[in-house]
């Protein structure tokens, strides 16, 4: 679309800008401020420069948390994206079944995050939980408080349960926007199911998938409430992700300087990954145009 050049458009942006600035810029400045100081009390503080950043980057527990975080995010993306697409393809398209399935599938998305943790805590406990009890009855010594493998598997299962619906919902909606004529033409062209998916459905899903993957990456990278309620980060620190390390440091230990520096590093990692992903996608689309 040809957009008109008009700087008065700023007036339309202004209210939004003020609000977001209030919620984003002021706090961010505070964080930056802390990150370069050592605060003893309200009146005593020293300028430390990049000291905290160096310390944080060399902290082995945080390095481990970062690795753990990446492992977690990539795992859930690898499961949730294909599964979500599959569910979207399976969801009925018409009638009351469509509404019913849509509501059922979306349900986990609208449950407060710590309640999600509680639901899974109740579900997986060995004594009163259906899943934990069943696994034990089947002879598997399931125990998320003692076995890191069990804890990991459970958190991933919980995340799949919680977030696959987002991918499914976005894809379902994307699929619904494909006109019938495309499917009809494909039948006339004797295209296989796979060819229909590969050449009609997937191309139309590219945009929603980019958004879905971005949102999922960002949220999985910020995950806090669900594992905190379910495992408390344990056993040991095997399921302690970045948000939890950060909150423990900032609120629990009141280490303002280091935690501020850590915050900024954390934020930058997310920005960087998202930016790389985004530009990669955009470049792919640009190349398409250049070929023309």
């Amino acid at each position, binding site marked *: 679309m040809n957009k008109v050049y008009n*700087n008065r458009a700023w007036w339309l942006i202004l209210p939004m800008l003020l609000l977001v600035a209030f919620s984003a810029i002021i706090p961010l400045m505070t964080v930056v401020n802390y990150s370069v100081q050592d605060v003893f009390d309200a009146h005593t503080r020293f300028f430390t420069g990049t000291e905290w950043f160096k310390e944080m980057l060399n902290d082995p527990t945080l390095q481990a948390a970062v690795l753990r975080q990446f492992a977690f995010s990539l795992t859930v993306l690898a499961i949730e994206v294909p599964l979500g697409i599959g569910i979207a393809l399976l969801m009925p398209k018409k009638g009351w079944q469509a509404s019913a399935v849509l509501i059922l599938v979306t349900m986990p998305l609208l449950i407060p995050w710590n309640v999600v943790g509680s639901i899974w805590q*109740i579900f997986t406990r060995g004594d009163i939980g259906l899943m934990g009890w069943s696994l034990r009855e089947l002879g598997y010594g399931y125990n998320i408080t003692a076995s890191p493998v069990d804890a990991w598997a459970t958190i991933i299962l919980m995340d799949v349960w919680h977030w696959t619906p987002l991918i499914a919902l976005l894809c379902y*909606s994307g699929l619904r926007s494909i006109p019938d004529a495309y499917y009809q033409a494909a039948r006339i062209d004797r295209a296989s199911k796979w060819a229909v998916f590969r050449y009609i459905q997937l191309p139309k899903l590219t945009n929603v998938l980019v958004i879905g993957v971005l949102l999922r990456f960002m949220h999985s990278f910020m995950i806090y409430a669900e594992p905190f309620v379910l495992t408390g980060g344990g056993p040991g620190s095997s399921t302690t992700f970045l948000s939890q390390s950060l909150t423990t440091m900032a609120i629990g230990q009141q280490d303002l300087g280091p935690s501020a520096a850590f915050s900024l590093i954390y934020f930058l990692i997310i920005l960087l990954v998202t930016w790389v992903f985004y530009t990669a996608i955009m470049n792919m689309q640009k190349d398409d145009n250049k070929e023309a």
Partner: protein
Amino acid sequence: MSHSSPTTPDAVRQRAAAADNRRRRRARPASRQWRRRGLMAAYIVFVLLPIYWLLNMSFQSNTEILGGLTLWPENFTVEHYAKILTESSWYMGYVNSIAYVLMNMLISIVVALPAAYAFSRYQFIGDKHLFFWLLTNLMAPPAVFLLPYFQLYYTVGLFDTHVAVALAHCLFNIPLAVWILEGFMSGVPKEIDETAFIDGYSFPRFFVKIFIPMISSGIGVTLFFLFMFSWVELLLASTLTSTDAQPIASVMTQTKGASGIDWGALAAAGTLTILPGIVVVYFVRNHIAKGFALGRT
């Protein structure tokens, strides 16, 4: 026009073969249909099982819960629900949550609508950078902002109010709303605007009377996402409140009494947090089923 009924043996055989063929053809898609339904049903069971367990437990007394595993409530009781709906420390949690979520939805949509319109229709100094900066706010981990928020809202005297949480959630909800709405608005041809202005509409009247109805399904979808992300967020909401504006999600974390966790109350409270979401999906289901494609194409 010319056609003949099958009188020759050959023709009869041909028709029989065709009929046979028809039966075979029909049989195959039907079995595929059932496989699809089977897989879908399996996924729905996976979604519902943990929720069923929560529901099951919410109708059991704590003695039954701890006494051993039962697949359904044998002594059906609504005592936990009664407790939640009568004790103000419990039900005020819901009131608080709903209050700040609604405030946030209202604020976000009101400021996001004109902003999204500006992004979709005009070029201006710094538009692209501004848009990118907006999106980066979506990526800010709430944990990063916990402490500064606490200090900021404490300083301006908003600590433990609904407004504080509503404003804090604007951090990610406004960018999200602008992003989604911009996509929908770009799908509306510009000629609509021009025609309206030629017809003598002022900008505000055009915007309210013509433009907003045209993107109503976009607004529906946006409100759905705004509700979703504000309703489910806990970290900021619980940090910025203590007693007066405490959300239900953080009331729930305090069910650990002297005698251990009050499982029944926890389950009942959890069940009640699911209901508003179901209502919201019910309202937007048609907008979603109509199909939308988020983002710029």
